[in-house]
């Protein structure tokens, strides 16, 4: 199986095929509904974002609390379409990879084409399995959002499927 390290180089993305399974390693940031709302509010006010989004990978996930002796609780993907209205603004700032589940809308796909981004799907509900691939987790902002806070995760061999590419090709029916 192919490995991909994040942050990625553009040349890493071109050879990827739709439906191809890859193992992701490196740094990814969790952000879901409430965090997206806050990020976009910051952008609209012209403020600086709490992490460097240029080239970053965002994972749509709100984990369970970490049980004793684990860095994080179960942490599968949440449904991506709820982030669609916020996504183009983040892509314009350089967001490179999104990880979630389910189809994206046309605006997101258009913005992905414009910005050369990649959308990966993790298996929804496979939260205990994905938890095993997270080596560390730190809340970096919006702690008041609880499960929805933004976390910096270090992942190793995190299984994902190439779902939508920057040329608009998609695995979804």
């Amino acid at each position, binding site marked *: 199986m192919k490995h991909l390290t994040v942050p990625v180089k553009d040349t890493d993305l071109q050879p990827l095929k739709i439906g191809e*399974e890859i193992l992701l390693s490196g740094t990814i940031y969790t952000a879901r509904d409430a965090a997206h709302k806050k990020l976009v509010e910051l952008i609209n006010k012209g403020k600086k974002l709490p992490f460097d989004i240029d080239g970053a990978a965002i994972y749509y*996930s709100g984990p*369970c609390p970490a049980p004793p002796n684990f860095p994080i609780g179960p942490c599968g993907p949440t449904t991506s379409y709820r982030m669609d209205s916020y996504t183009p603004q983040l892509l314009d700032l350089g967001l490179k990879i999104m990880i979630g589940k389910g*189809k994206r809308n046309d605006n997101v796909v258009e913005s992905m084409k414009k910005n050369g981004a990649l959308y990966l799907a993790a298996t929804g509900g*496979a*939260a205990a399995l994905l938890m095993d691939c997270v080596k560390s987790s730190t809340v970096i902002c919006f702690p008041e959002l609880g499960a929805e806070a933004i976390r910096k995760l270090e992942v190793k061999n995190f299984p994902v499927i190439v779902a939508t590419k920057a040329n608009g090709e998609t695995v979804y029916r």
Partner: protein
Amino acid sequence: MRIVDVKLIEEAIYEMFLTCCVHPDRALSGRIQDALAVEKSPIAQSILKQIQKNIEIADQNNVPLCQDTGMAVVFIDIGQEVSLKGEYINDAINNAVRRAYQDGYFRKSVLSPITRINTEDNTPAVIHTRIIKGDKIIIRVAPKGFGSENMSRIKMITPAQGIEGIYEFVLETVKNAGGNPCPPITLGIGIGGTFELCALNAKRALLRSLGESSEDEDIAVIEKKLLNDINKLGIGPMGMGGSTTALAVHIISAPTHLAGLPCAINVQCHSVRHESRTI
């Protein structure tokens, strides 16, 4: 009169949530195995294997199957000959939910619909109480994730559209949902009754053991046909194509008004979680 201490109910519900957020319906693994035997697409194979593996890891590590440990839905049927002693029953149920979500390291997902401020303990539970014959108490709990709940729908179909209208509505709902509700899904369908009874029956239908067909033969035929038709849609596991879009269709019907044919569809993801216990 049989006297039952409410504390007993609280303890039962506490244990049931701790169990069912970690261990899915006992039939799930077998159903996934069956799907693996027929599924031809390699992506579908790989996703189904992950789902299978996830069940094992959750069990070994005693952690929730899915991070969305849901809203706590509790159905409680109380025998008419039972007298409850102790705390107010709904408070006891909420205590059980609060304790289970805390002790189990489950996610707290419940918040105000307007302010979006989280209650921090996953209460209040959604409680459906019913009085039944006899002196037993039957408790059923089901944590419900919202990836699939969000894909649920209700429609007041016209009598002229009839059963064909129901088929059309169900297939359209599954098609629109695509990969969002974490297929392979199970559908709980309410047919008939009033607007709210129909929706409640859809939820109740999901409490049946996975794949257990209706005792009503006419309904069982509809369940089978729908399951067959849904699996011809090609949506497949996580919406990436394949022949395993749904694992089961469960229907509960109720008499309705001569002017109507309500139909509610409650979508359940592959994390089929529920427990039942009789006291």
